[in-house]
């Protein structure tokens, strides 16, 4: 058995020990995981952001324009000071402005226009009718400017059934996903660690 398999198995069992009760071994494994994750993210982000976007362009490629985002980035840290905290508003304004400019047209196209056109189907099948009823009744449920009573209340109630079907399907898929993760760990323990399964 390789040392990495042994380490992975010990940590897997340490995390599983929480299922019995909270204990120091579980806590140690959890803290080590968090520490390693932060270290990993830090190394990747320093390399992929600070080195590749600031240091290399400025000092090796002579691209002085990289100074602008670098200075804006540094200005973000001014929030740590009460006196000069207002400076952070400038990079935030750039971030929000550019973000909105990039995202709004894309979202309008992908999330609203395309979805609306996909919902407007000829009513020549049961599926299309169900979709029409589902869309209208679900939208009625989320319309909060009118009391849900009478015909409107009835339509909104139908919407809740569609939502419940959605939540049920999502729950089923979630169970499937989480069980797969457990199977993955058990498979590792039983094959790589214990050698019970080939």
């Amino acid at each position, binding site marked *: 058995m390789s040392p990495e398999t042994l380490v992975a198995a010990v940590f897997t069992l340490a995390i599983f020990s929480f*299922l019995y009760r909270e204990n120091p071994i579980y806590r140690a494994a959890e803290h080590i995981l968090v520490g390693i994750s932060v270290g990993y993210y830090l190394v990747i982000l320093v390399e992929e952001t600070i080195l590749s976007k600031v240091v290399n362009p400025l000092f090796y490629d002579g691209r002085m324009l990289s100074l602008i985002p670098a200075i804006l980035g540094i200005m973000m840290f001014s929030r740590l000071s009460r006196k000069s905290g207002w400076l952070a508003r400038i990079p935030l304004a750039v971030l929000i402005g550019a973000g909105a400019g990039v995202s709004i047209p894309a979202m309008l196209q*992908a*999330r609203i226009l395309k*979805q609306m056109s996909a919902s407007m189907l000829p009513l020549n099948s049961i599926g299309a009718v169900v979709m029409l009823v589902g869309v209208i009744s679900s939208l009625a449920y989320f319309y909060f400017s009118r009391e849900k009573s009478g015909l409107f209340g009835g339509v909104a109630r139908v919407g809740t059934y569609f939502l419940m079907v959605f939540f049920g399907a999502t729950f089923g*898929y979630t169970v*499937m996903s989480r069980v797969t993760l457990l199977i993955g760990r058990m498979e590792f323990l039983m094959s790589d660690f214990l050698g019970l399964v080939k």
Partner: protein
Amino acid sequence: MDLSRLDRRIIFLLMGLAIAIPMLFNVTLPVNVEKDTLAVYDKIEMIEESEYVMVSFDFEASSFPEMRPLAVAILNHLFERNIKVIGLALFSEGTALGFTTISDIAEKHGKKYGIDYIYLGFRPQYISAILGMGESIARVFPEDYLKKQWQEYPLFSGLENYDNAGLVISVSDGSLPIHWAEYANARYGVEIGVACAAVMVTAFKPYFNSGQLIGPVAGVKGAAEYEKLLGRQGAAQRRLFTQSSAHILIIVLVLGANLAAYMRRKR
């Protein structure tokens, strides 16, 4: 027996047994291929050998057991068809896992780095990365994961942007495929195939129905379906029996608990 007072550790133990015992038996359940999985398979079948396919490893280490069979099935198909593969990662944790996976599968097919596939590595800020690659992949990824100028590989030197990619496949455990649909599909018209964690299927469904995304090959079942289409028995098909056993236990527990609650209320 009042199930509401059942010690939760007994449920954990039952779940452990429901998974461990079937694992000891090498049982393969029959698999029916659904149209969602077939959509991704058919799309890859239509891609010419000279074209490139981008495979984005958009997942974290925690979901690797579910993501690996999906990535392996898709990569097996791409390499079997001699399609040039460009790997990348938009989540930092997926970077090394993606490289290991693509290298393993490429080696099994006798494929060479720089000739049959390259791996670009990770870029932070996925929205800028997705948008940037629509203009110039080289500007977003000047170097590959191995810190080499990837344009020096002759077979990849003509790769400029999504116009050269027959398909982008996002192997994802989160919402990244939606961003691919919003920024790469809507803006640049590139087709996006999805292999995703089962938990994300309902969130993506409207995008598949509207044609913004292709697929999905979802979860271990989707991977098993894909393995069947390829005629290979892999990890996913072996896991289906174990998965079904765990699902049956959950159904029994849910029904039992509801029945117990009903009886208690009746008393």
